[in-house]
């Protein structure tokens, strides 16, 4: 709320960050492990007095230089640029807290560049001992770069002690620092072998190709095995909420983990084929597939790490949308728009409600949601929600879905945001006054379930279930699926929701007929003293012409507020109102006289 938002509704900043970050991280880990690989490959060539191995090392050093200094260096700058554009507030905090960490990392970056230039351009011209020392200097500088960046990145995931005692060191040596450093070092060495396969596959000399493919394979396999305990330690060290998201609460992480798992399986199998079989003709496609699976693994890992930090960009300090955790109570009390520097709608008015809602969307939701884009599309997420459902949903955003930040605004602003999403984005009618409490099962379904499930999905998943089983399931949703938050509604609400879910599996025709029969009774008992359906003195159907089911149902909850308050309220149970609604809808379609 301190900074403007770069607004690309169909793309979303998060996707741009992910693309650039994954490419950079895939190269930068190679930049660390690959340096050590060069030193050992050169040593192997010297010990075995093999000109072919030394020539391979020189040509791999050229590939390494072009990949890491050019693409690695510039994509590193690109990450810095993109995070400052998408998360300017968080970038500013990280720059200010860790400025001398970044500055120290810059020194290592400088040493790295000079060392790799010297290493490559003096290959074969310098005495072996000094040349290998230059290789070691490169590797150590690259590893210390990782050491420093690792501390800052992990701070974002687990600030730990820093939250109580902010200092450079308490943030840097956070709870995830050491396991992450070891894990990344192992991955870096694994990537050294993975990238080397690409060079070995193009070796013309068969004996050298076999020798260096085997050598590179050992780097992959040993590091692969070493990464497993490091990964487990890493997982155990992250905050419990992040662990819960990885363990199943977040569908997007589940997809990434699945991709990561299979990419690791493919990587291991193909590496074994390369190392054991050393197939001559297949070595190039195999090397390429190993490379691609390593890329998918890195992407899955980075995606999961970033996603597990939600709803924060810096855990426990700043939400993904740049709002500080500490500011939320004040914003919920006094409102967000008046203090958001880059908002134009400082006051809420009925005529500009949609504009205010749009600004609230941009400042609070757009950090994670696109409009019609591939990443976390708000249109798909809110398709099944009515206005009252959205109002209820916004009230319990963070409670129901931990990985979403709470709505940081007052009730009037929540209303504006709901209007923007429901009317502005979904094009649905907005009817005030129909609240969640005591509302029908459908309304509860929309506010509690529709963000993830549409009716058809729930209908098919509960086909054959009786009401008791559905009702019991609602007591412990996380037992059905670890990814689902438990439903925190009252006993009555659970009953209504269960009734609604049961009704989804009733034969539609029969249900309509039943609804219409009972609805006709309700109509006769409550309405017919003043209204007919058609014709007569006060026909009802012309008054609700063009109204959909939802609007009619909502109107039945607020009859005393319609038409200047001349009608009495409809004192009937929700089920009766549902039946009356079905009757009126059927009558609109010509089903009743």
């Amino acid at each position: 709320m301190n900074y403007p938002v770069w607004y690309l509704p169909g793309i979303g900043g998060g996707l741009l960050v992910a693309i650039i970050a994954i490419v950079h991280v895939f190269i930068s880990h190679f930049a660390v492990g690959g340096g050590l690989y060069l030193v050992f490959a050169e040593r192997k060539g010297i010990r075995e007095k093999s000109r072919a191995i030394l020539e391979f090392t020189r040509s791999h050093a050229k590939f390494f230089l072009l990949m890491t200094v050019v693409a690695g260096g510039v994509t590193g700058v690109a990450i810095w640029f993109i995070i400052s554009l998408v998360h300017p507030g968080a970038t500013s905090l990280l720059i200010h807290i860790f400025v001398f960490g970044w500055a120290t990392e810059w020194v290592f970056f400088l040493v790295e560049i000079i060392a790799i230039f010297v290493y490559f351009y003096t290959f074969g011209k310098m005495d072996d001992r000094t040349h290998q020392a230059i290789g070691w200097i490169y590797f150590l500088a690259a590893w210390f770069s990782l050491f420093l960046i690792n501390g800052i990145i992990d701070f974002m995931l687990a600030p730990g002690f820093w939250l109580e005692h902010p200092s450079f060191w308490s943030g840097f040596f956070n709870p995830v620092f050491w396991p992450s450093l070891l894990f990344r070092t192992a991955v870096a060495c694994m990537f050294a072998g993975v990238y080397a396969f690409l060079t070995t596959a193009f070796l013309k000399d068969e004996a050298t190709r076999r020798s260096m493919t085997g050598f590179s394979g050992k780097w992959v396999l040993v590091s692969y095995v070493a990464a497993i305990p490091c990964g487990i330690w890493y997982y155990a060290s992250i905050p419990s909420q992040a662990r819960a998201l990885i363990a199943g609460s977040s569908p997007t992480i589940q997809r990434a983990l699945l991709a990561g798992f299979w990419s690791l399986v493919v990587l291991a199998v193909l590496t074994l084929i390369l190392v054991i079989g050393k197939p001559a003709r297949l070595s190039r496609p195999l090397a390429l597939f190993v490379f691609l699976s390593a890329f998918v693994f890195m992407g899955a890992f980075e995606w999961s790490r970033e996603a597990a930090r939600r709803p924060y960009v810096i855990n426990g300090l700043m939400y993904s949308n740049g709002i500080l955790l500490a500011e939320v109570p004040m914003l919920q009390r006094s409102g967000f728009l008046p203090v958001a520097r880059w908002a134009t709608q400082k006051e809420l008015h009925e005529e500009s409600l949609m504009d205010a809602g749009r600004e609230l969307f941009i400042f609070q939701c757009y950090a994670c949601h696109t409009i019609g884009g591939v990443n976390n599309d708000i249109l798909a997420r809110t398709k099944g929600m009515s206005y009252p459902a959205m109002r209820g949903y916004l009230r319990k955003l963070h409670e129901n879905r931990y990985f979403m930040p709470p709505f940081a605004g007052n009730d009037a602003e929540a209303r504006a945001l709901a209007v923007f999403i429901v009317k502005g984005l979904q094009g649905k009618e907005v009817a005030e006054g129909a609240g969640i409490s005591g509302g029908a099962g459908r309304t509860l379904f929309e506010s509690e379930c529709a963000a993830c499930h549409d009716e058809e999905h729930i209908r098919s998943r509960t086909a054959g279930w009786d009401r008791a089983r559905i009702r019991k399931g609602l007591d412990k949703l996380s037992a059905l699926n670890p990814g689902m938050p438990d439903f925190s509604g009252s006993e009555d609400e659970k009953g209504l929701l269960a009734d609604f879910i049961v009704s989804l599996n009733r034969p539609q025709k029969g249900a309509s007929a039943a609804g219409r029969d009972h609805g006709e009774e309700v109509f006769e008992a409550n309405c017919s003293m003043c209204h007919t359906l058609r014709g007569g003195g006060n026909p009802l159907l012309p008054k609700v012409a063009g109204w959909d089911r939802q609007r009619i149902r909502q109107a039945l909850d607020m009859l005393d507020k319609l038409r200047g308050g001349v009608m009495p309220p409809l004192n009937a149970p929700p089920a009766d109102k549902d039946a009356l609604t079905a009757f009126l809808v059927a009558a609109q379609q010509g089903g009743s006289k």
Partner: protein
Amino acid sequence: MNPLIPTPDTLPVSWGYFQSLLMLMFPLHLLLMNAMLGCAALSLYALMKGGETDKRLAHELAKALPFLIAFAINFGVAALLFLQVIYGNFFYASSVLMAVFWLSVPLILLIAYYAAYLYDFRFAALEAGGKWLAAMVLAIFLAVAFFFTNNMTLMLEPHRWTAYFRNPGGTVLNAGSAAMWPRYLHFVTGGLAMGGLFVALYGRFKGRRDPELGARAVGLGMNLFTGLTLLQILIGLWFLVSLPSTVMRLFLGDSGTATVLFAVGVTLALAALGAGFKRRVVLSATLAIPLVFVMTFLRDVVRSGYLEPFFSPETLRVAPEYSPLLLFVVTLMAGVATIVWMLRKTALINRNGV
């Protein structure tokens, strides 16, 4: 106070440390960037001339280009870091406004960087294609400079930030600002002139082994340096008068320090130009390198002048923590020692011709 200006974050040490580091790193970045620009421009020019010596010179400059890009980026990172610490709240806001162009900077730079390597490694094989490649590299450098000038001016003019409300998609440029174009031309002309001087110095160094090539490099480089520095007198004046009057007057007596710096800068520029006309390459460089530092200080005066109504770095909050500064200083010293050792070992090979 402009309500759009974001609240700055807290510093770990006094702003003066960052200011000193910025005033050290930025001129080093400028020198490297100028050399890079000059190499690209003169390599292209020499290649287009097409003589045997010119071709050799074009190739020699092509070889230098990737190194210069690497170090220009590296020192640019350091300068940008210290800029963000002091002026981050202005810089991030202006960057978001022109996000599409700003993000394109590293992406097109990546293309230029690989193109420069291709130009170097495949120089002979490229033939006519080399001209197009070098032209593309030069065009990208000029485009990057254009985007930087836009951002560096936009961050100083918060009253122009309201453009965001008409265009939140990140395609705002500061082309409507009176100072943007003269500033861009001032920096590009100065950069190319200094680049010419770098090529001349390179020629003086190379001339020991290859006098013909050396003489050609000195000739081309010094022509570029003197010609553009003469032109700079006009562009510099245009830039000066395009500044808001309160800022301009700082150099004309309102601020003693700024006025003295300005006088020193003009004197150094005229002296370097005089030495340039006499083809005194080393003397020109000896005068021009401190000139780049003085120009950086003048640029900083301009920045402070623009921001004076809204911001002063002295007002930034400080939560003192000096140990990370110590970590940086110790690492920097160790890093410089390591670099010196590596370069000495490399020089030894070149000297011994191993």
